[in-house]
């Protein structure tokens, strides 16, 4: 299948030219080869709407990327750049427009610079978090990587998709942590941003903005160019880390808990990623090293679940009774501190003072870590909290008594919501109604992630299966959730390919001024529309 405007003859010309540019061994057109680029978690699996690549081409360097882009222009064959292509749940390596050729950058896998004194690195797109970890270790550099979980993706790919991690706020926002990029523009021209535009500068990874408009953001979640290098600020290994736990027993305490955590973060007292949980609901805090195995969670207590949603006096009474009878707190918060030992212990004491305004609040014994971690600690900790990439998240999703259906893949509905307890209650209530209305199992009462400063992010994980009927049901629910959330001001921060247009539709202020701006830029930079048409809802004129 070829995209509109690209004939079989043009496709053939493109493949011949790709082979001359990168060598025939790095151009792929057979079904078996292309199957590797299929999205393993596609919500369209096996249906006509599933996205497929027509070819793949893997350049070895920037000059070859430039040549490939020029060939794409000449032959009207769109290319879809990927770094490591491990973005499962948000599209993997399948193109947003079927028939595009995947521009696979995995061969460009050099760590170009490690500056331990300035705590920065410069990498190519094919470098994975594991690669970077290995290089830092081999260099003896005491720098931590803020990695997502799982860590098999690439720092560039994850940052450009605006992914997040687990350590200090300036590092766990992966796009914010970057400093300088190199981009092949759709016409094949090479651009460097920030201080990289000053040829003699030695500060490309030290000062972000350079001179004039800071345009780096235009290359994230977009299709305006192919990023071929990015600098990142790294986290110097701290002397210590302390993890504190806070428990609140009343249902109404959530709002205060959220407010205090937010204040502690905004004042810099809490400087690691916080989190919220509910011991009563057996909802663990994400990345809690003491958390029980999520696969072990027992079947939900339906009356209790219902009470968490309903919020009336009877429900509060039931929750209070369960807190008393089980000895489990209604809510928990986890706060992390990185720094010198004396400082993190003081930060914990200061935090406890502020949490003490909640009546009956209790504190768990804090965990204290110094580095390097012991073998026993390495076995039980959440490694990304300590700058170590991991794949252990894949132990989640297997079939259990509480979850009888195999989780073959997933898609995440992940709206940004205000940082308030009220918003958490409201988002759960709205989504529950839609799930019930659609006849789908209602997910357990959800608690937000605190990846981003100042806002919360809910992550509702839906299964994807090999059964089109089941996938259609979940897609229908997803398509209802997007506008229902938007009506209340909650917007997706990122979404699977299947929902790009629907989500972009909701960012509609002033008659879709933002989308029209994107389209104006797209048409100016990429008049032939050959870079990732449709990515994040940005379509070039020829496909609109």
């Amino acid at each position: 299948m070829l995209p509109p405007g690209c004939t079989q003859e043009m496709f053939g010309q493109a493949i011949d030219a790709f082979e001359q540019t990168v060598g025939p061994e790095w151009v792929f057109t057979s079904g078996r080869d292309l199957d590797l680029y299929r999205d393993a978690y596609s919500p369209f699996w096996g249906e006509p709407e599933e996205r497929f690549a027509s070819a793949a081409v893997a350049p070895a360097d920037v000059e070859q990327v430039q040549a490939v882009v020029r060939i794409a222009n000449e032959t009207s064959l769109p290319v879809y750049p990927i770094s490591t292509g491990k973005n499962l749940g948000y599209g993997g390596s399948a193109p947003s427009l079927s028939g595009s050729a995947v521009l696979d950058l995995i061969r460009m896998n050099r760590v170009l610079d490690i500056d331990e004194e300035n705590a920065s690195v410069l990498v190519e797109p094919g470098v994975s978090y594991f690669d970077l970890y290995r290089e830092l270790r081999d260099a003896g550099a005491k720098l931590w990587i803020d990695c997502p979980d799982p860590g098999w993706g690439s720092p560039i790919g994850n940052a450009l998709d605006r992914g997040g991690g687990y350590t200090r706020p300036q590092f766990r926002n992966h796009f914010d942590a970057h400093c300088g990029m190199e981009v092949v523009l759709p016409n094949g021209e090479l651009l460097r941003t920030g201080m990289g535009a000053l040829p003699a500068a030695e500060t490309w990874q030290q000062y972000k903005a350079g001179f004039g408009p800071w345009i780096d953001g235009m290359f994230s979640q977009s299709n305006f160019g192919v990023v071929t290098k990015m600098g990142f600020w790294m986290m110097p290994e701290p002397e210590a880390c302390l993890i504190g736990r806070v428990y609140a027993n009343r249902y109404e305490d959530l709002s205060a808990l959220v407010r205090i955590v937010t204040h502690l973060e905004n004042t810099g007292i809490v400087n690691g990623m916080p989190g919220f949980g509910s011991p009563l609901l057996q909802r663990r805090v994400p990345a809690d090293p003491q958390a029980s195995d999520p696969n072990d969670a027992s079947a939900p207590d339906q009356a209790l679940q219902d009470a968490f949603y309903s919020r009336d006096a009877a429900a509060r009474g039931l929750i209070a009774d369960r807190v008393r009878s089980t000895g489990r707190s209604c809510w928990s918060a986890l706060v992390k501190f990185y720094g010198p030992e004396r400082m993190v212990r003081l930060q914990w004491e200061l935090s406890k003072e502020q949490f003490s305004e909640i009546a009956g609040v209790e504190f768990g014994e804090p965990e204290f870590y110094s580095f390097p971690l012991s073998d026993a600690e390495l076995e039980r900790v959440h490694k990304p909290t300590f700058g170590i990439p991991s794949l252990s998240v894949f132990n989640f999703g297997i079939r259990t008594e509480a979850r009888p259906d195999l989780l073959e893949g997933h898609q995440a509905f992940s709206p940004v919501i205000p940082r308030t307890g009220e918003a958490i209650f409201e988002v759960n209530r709205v989504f529950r109604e839609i799930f019930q209305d659609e006849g789908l199992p209602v997910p357990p009462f959800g608690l937000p992630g605190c990846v981003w400063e100042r806002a919360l992010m809910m992550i509702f994980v839906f299964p994807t299966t090999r059964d089109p009927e089941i996938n259609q049901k979940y897609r229908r629910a997803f398509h209802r959730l997007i506008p229902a959330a938007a009506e209340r001001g909650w917007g997706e921060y990122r979404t699977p390919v299947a929902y790009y247009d629907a989500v972009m539709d909701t960012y509609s202020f002033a008659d879709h001024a933002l989308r029209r701006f994107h389209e104006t830029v797209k048409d100016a930079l990429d008049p032939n529309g050959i870079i990732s048409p449709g990515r994040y809802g940005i379509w070039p004129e020829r496909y609109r």
Partner: protein
Amino acid sequence: MTLGSEISRRQILLGGGGGIAALGLGLGPAPALSANRTDVSLFLIDTAIPGTDEAARLAARKGAVVARFTGDPGVPWLEHLEPLWRHRPLPVAGLTFGGALFCFERLARGFGLSCGFRSSLPPARLAGSGHGKEHRQPAFGMAEAAFRAATDLAAYGQTRMTAAGIDAPDRPLTWVLRPAHVRRPRTDNGR
């Protein structure tokens, strides 16, 4: 238990100290590799699965290097699989849970390997953390038998898939990843 071809626990946990190169699989022909290209060169074991010692002994007798890990598939990926496959896409067998195989199978594709054999073992008593607390029949003997079948199948180039994929949490899998004659970009520029 100590096997001659195993590496230290800390190397396994954190990856310090050379990994696969220290095992002789980094560059040039290694003693563990036979002339038969389908021979399993490395055997990965999740220590959360009990009853795997016999399979480990069998693997060592057959010339495979044994690498153990607990829970996180990222450790053997970082230390063994990626360095090995970057050099040469050799067959690797494993006795792990389904989540680990899911990762390895996808990562293996990047080096032109695919799953040529997968078999589900009976529920096992589980050690360590991260895989539940059920106590059922251990996998003694079954692991050895499964590994024997896997290595034989790998040697003869057959493909057999007996399990439907990821299964119950206490159900381990034995598997072989081997060259699938699928071309795919992989490191070739000196890293």
